[in-house]
C-alpha cells in the first residue's frame, strides 16, 4: 500500500560518498549555510559545535535519568512532577521543552510516538531511529500498539493497559520502564546499562538479568 513506499526506500541508504557529485538538496544545504554565515546569523564554529553537541547526546543520558529514578524515590517524584526541572537538576538542560516522564507499572505500559512528524526527547536520547520517523510506526502504533510491540519482541499481557503518548514540538515524553526483578542493591551505573533507547521509547522492556 501507499504507506509502504515512503521513507524506507530512501532513508536507509548509506551515507553518500563525499567524493560523489552533490545532490540538489546537499547543494541547497551548503548554499543556505554559507549565506547564513555571511549574514552573521551564526558562525561556522557554531555549526561545528552544534554537530558535536548532537553527537554527544545518546540514550546513555536518558538511561542515567531512569537509573536515578529507580534508586532515589525523591528524584523519581520530582521527575514525574516536572521532567524538565528534574533533568536540569542532573545538569541536563531541556530548554523550553516540556518533558513528561511516563512510568510503566504492573498495570500500565507506555509507548511514545510523534504521529505528525518526529518529535522526540533528543536531549536525552539523541537523534531518533529511522523507524520512529517512518510512516509505518507513526500510523500503526496508535491504532494497534500491541501488534507493533510484538514486532519488537514485546508481549504485553492482556490485563496490562497500553497507553500511547503522541509528542508535539513543545512537549516530549520519555518512558520510565519498570526496574527488573533481581536488581536489588545494584548501583546506578549497572542499572543504567539495562536501560536501552527502545525501553525509553516503550517498544521494549529492560531485560531481566
Amino acid at each position, binding site marked *: 500500500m501507499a504507506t509502504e513506499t515512503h521513507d524506507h526506500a530512501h532513508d536507509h541508504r548509506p*551515507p553518500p560518498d563525499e567524493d560523489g557529485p552533490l545532490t540538489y538538496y546537499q547543494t541547497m544545504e551548503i548554499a543556505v549555510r554559507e549565506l547564513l554565515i555571511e549574514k552573521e546569523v551564526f558562525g561556522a564554529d557554531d555549526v561545528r559545535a552544534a554537530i558535536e553537541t548532537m553527537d554527544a547526546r545518546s540514550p546513555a543520558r536518558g538511561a542515567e535519568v531512569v537509573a536515578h529514578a529507580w534508586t532515589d524515590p525523591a528524584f523519581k517524584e520530582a521527575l514525574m512532577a516536572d521532567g524538565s526541572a528534574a533533568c536540569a537538576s542532573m545538569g541536563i538542560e531541556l530548554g523550553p521543552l516540556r518533558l513528561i516522564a511516563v512510568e510503566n507499572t504492573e498495570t500500565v505500559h507506555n509507548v511514545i510516538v510523534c504521529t505528525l512528524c518526529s518529535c522526540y526527547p533528543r536531549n536525552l536520547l539523541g537523534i531518533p531511529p529511522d523507524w520512529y520517523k517512518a510512516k509505518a510506526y507513526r500510523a500503526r502504533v496508535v491504532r494497534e500498539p500491541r501488534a507493533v510491540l510484538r514486532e519488537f519482541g514485546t508481549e504485553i499481557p492482556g490485563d496490562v493497559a497500553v497507553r500511547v503518548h503522541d509528542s508535539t514540538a513543545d512537549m516530549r515524553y520519555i518512558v520510565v520502564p519498570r526496574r527488573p526483578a533481581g536488581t536489588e542493591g545494584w548501583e546506578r551505573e549497572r542499572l543504567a546499562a539495562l536501560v536501552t533507547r527502545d525501553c525509553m521509547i516503550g517498544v521494549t522492556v529492560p531485560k531481566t538479568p
Partner: protein
Amino acid sequence: MSDDPGRGYHDIGGLPGGRIERAEHAHALWEMRVDALMVLLTHPERRVITVDELRRGIEQLGAEAYDAMTYYERWIASVTNTLLGKGVITADELGRRMAEVAARDGEGAG
C-alpha cells in the same frame, strides 16, 4: 495516501501501515549539518525559525514530494522555504549561491 480531504498527508496517526522497517542508517555529515542548522535557527537566542514552522513547511511540500524525499531533504527544503518567506535570504541569492556551489563541486570532481 489518505483520500480524506480533511486530513493532511503528514497526519497519518491511526491509518493502516505496513511492517516496521527496523534497519537504521548512519547519518551522513550533510544530514548532521541540516540538523545543526535547525538547532541554531531555533535557538532561543536567535529564534529565526520555530519547530512548528519547520513542520508547517514540511506539510506544504506536497504529498508527492513528501513521499519521495528523505527525512533531511524535507528539513532543508522546509528551512529554506521558511527563510525565503521571512526574507532572511532572497531567492536570487539562493539561486546564485547554489549555482556557485554546484560549479565548485564540478571542478573538484573533475
